[in-house]
Every structure is written in C-alpha cells, then in structure tokens.
C-alpha cells in the first residue's frame, strides 16, 4: 500500500504537481499529529480506489516547513487539492471517509 501515496519534499514538490495529469490531493501532516494518523489509512484507500482519477501525495511539515508556510498551512491535517499545479480546494481537519469523499467529490 505504501507506493500508492507519493512522498513529496521541497525538491520534488513543484515538479510532481506540474507533471501530473490528474488532480493531486496533498496531505500536509506530521508524526506528532494524532488526527493526521487517523486519516492516513483513509487517504490510502482513496488513492487505491480512485487510481487514475486522482493522485494522493503527502508532505511532512516538520521536514518541510517552507512549503507549509508557502501554502499558509496553520493547522494539520490540511488537504490541498492541486489541479494543473495550482491549489483548487483546501480542507482543514480530520474527517471520516464518507465526509471526505463528499467534500472531494468534484475531483473523484
């Protein structure tokens, strides 16, 4: 399951987003964030179930605070959906799978 989610870094971030033909859901997370851990398996499921429609990637804000600042992330988990390399939607806070699917509906 580990490969279904792309791990982003400051070096790869822009390239991955610019080269993707599908929308990319980026999960801004950290090891110490409990709610982030709760939604991680849900995001893996979405990545598997919607393969080809949407990509899921994650960014550790501890390792890359520059990117958290660049996208004004002040609370995690934050999910930002990038379409054609640009932010198209932002969801803040952990949610159940049903609600996540509903709020991400336009990209799935």
């Amino acid at each position, binding site marked *: 399951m580990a490969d279904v989610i792309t791990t982003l870094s400051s070096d790869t971030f822009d390239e991955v987003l610019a080269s993707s033909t599908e929308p990319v859901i980026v999960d801004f997370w950290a090891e110490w964030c*409990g*709610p982030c851990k709760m939604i991680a398996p849900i995001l893996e499921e979405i990545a598997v179930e919607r393969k080809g429609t949407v990509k899921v990637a994650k960014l550790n804000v501890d390792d890359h605070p520059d990117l958290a600042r660049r996208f004004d992330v*002040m609370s995690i988990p934050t999910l930002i959906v990038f379409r054609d390399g640009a932010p198209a939607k932002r969801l803040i806070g952990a949610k159940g799978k049903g609600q996540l699917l509903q709020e991400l509906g336009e990209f799935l």
Partner: protein
Amino acid sequence: MVEADEPGVTVRDVVIIGSGPAGLTAAVYSARANLAPLLLEGEPSSTSDQPGGQLMLTTEVENFPGFPEGVMGPELMGRMREQALRFGTEVVTAKATSVDFSSHPLRIRSGDEEHLSRAVIVSTGARSLMLGLPAESRLLGHGLSTCATCDGFFFRGREIAVVGGGDSALEEALFLTKFASKVTLIHRRDQLRASKIMQERALRNDRIEFLWNHTVVDLHGETRLEAAVVRDTISGAQRVFPLDGLFVAIGHQPNTDIFAGQLDRDAAGYLVTGPGTATNVPGVFACGDVQDHTYRQAITAAGSGCMAAIDAERWLEATGHG
C-alpha cells in the same frame, strides 16, 4: 447473539456507543464476560469527538495509575483499544446517528446501518465548547484552534493566547510555550479553577502572562486571525488585543443530542444516571463524561465504564439473557 423475530436480523447483547476510556473499559469488561460487544467508536475528526475521545488531543498523561513515567494520551487510548479487541470486541469506525429506545430490542442507527441490541452502554463523552462568535468558522484553522497539539508547531516565535482557566487551558498554555514566544492566558475570572499543580507550573512559567477578568467578544482578520477583541468583565471596557493565534479551552458540553427526548438529561445536557449507571430506560446505561460534569478524569471515566459493563451484564442476567 440470537435471531430476532425478524428473520436474518441479529440482536446483540451489548452495543457500546463511544470509545474514550469509559467506552473502551466497558468493552474490555463486557467482552471478557462473553457478551461479544459491538463498539461504535466514532469517526476521525480534529475535535475531541473522535475515536479515543478527548485524550487523543492531549500529550502527556501523568495521573493515570500504572504509568509512573507518564504516558502519551493517544498511546494510552491505543492500548485500551487493543485490550478491548483482544477479548473479542467488534469495533466499527462509525458514529451513531440516531437511536430508538422506545421499545426492545433497542435500536441504534449509524448512517444506513441499524444495530439491534438488548443492552446499550452510552459513552459518547463531551466535546470542547467554542466561543460562539460569528468569525469563528471563518478563522478556524487560520490562527484559531481547538487543538494545541495539532497546531502549536505553526506558532513558533509568535504571540498567541489561550482562552480558559481549567486544567485543559493550562495544559495547552504550557505546551504552547515550547513554540510561542509569549502565551497570554485570557480568563474571565481573577482566579483559576485548574488543579494546584497545573496552576503552580503555569504561574512559574515566565512565557505565560495572565489577562484576568477578560472575555473574548470578537475576532479580527479576514483570511487569518490578526487580533481578538477582549472585554474587561468588571469595567466593561473593550480593546483590541493583537495576536497570531488563539486557542480555545473554555470547557465542554456533553454529546447527548441524539438522545434528546429519550434519555433524561439535566439542565446542562448531561445524562442523568442512578442507581449505578442506569438511565431512565431499562437496559440503557451511561458512563464517562457524558454523565459526569464533576470529576471528568480518564480514570473516573474508565471506572464508570467498568460499572456500566457490570450493570449491563447483571441486567441481561436478570431479564433472562445472560
């Protein structure tokens, strides 16, 4: 579990709603009593209304017996969950959305699913109160936070405030001093209701300042919090208090909305129990913070969860199902 009158529908002995220390302890006890409980543990969220409950948003728990070095809140809850699973609790990651306790078997609905049970243990806990300001929903996650452990990191070197005067407010303030340059505790009275040990720690910490006798009456900032408007509760004077972050810890309200009209509640919305953990509906028992606004500790919640499991087991025996 046996077949109900309706063919193909199983009626359980025990369904437990909620998975904090009360619900998980009730699960351990009723699973060990071979009651094969079903636990509706809730859904992921960034509030305390999530699997594991309020301890999922805390850091170090120093007062749970058996952990002399302390234990992290999420780790403690993970261990309780493992213990419940070990004895055969069936866990469903979903919230109860409505209940029908008007007849037996008792009915618990979770989205499209309906569960039937002879006994129900309610351990839905309590959630954090918000300030109730119009700007709140706009600024939540943009400088306004209810989870210091989730968001403290983003306030490194910034000036922030915590609203509240209880143990959770002081715990958040102390935790936030690891990141923030200054933490102001805004409290509506001139003394704290927090425990002595927490008060001493906070008063001793030179990064924490106190703004006594003040309440937050408005928030400024369009896309990001810029200031709070605070009001002096004695003079009534208002002023703008610039800050980068505001953490809310002003108390809790019980999660009892789905039981309205079915289970007796007190004026504050807490479930009324007694004798023991019994509610007004035979076969429905309540434990933990959903019925306790006095003690509200992990250990008292766990203790009452044990009581609810024993009460449910005896009730099942007495009604010929044990």
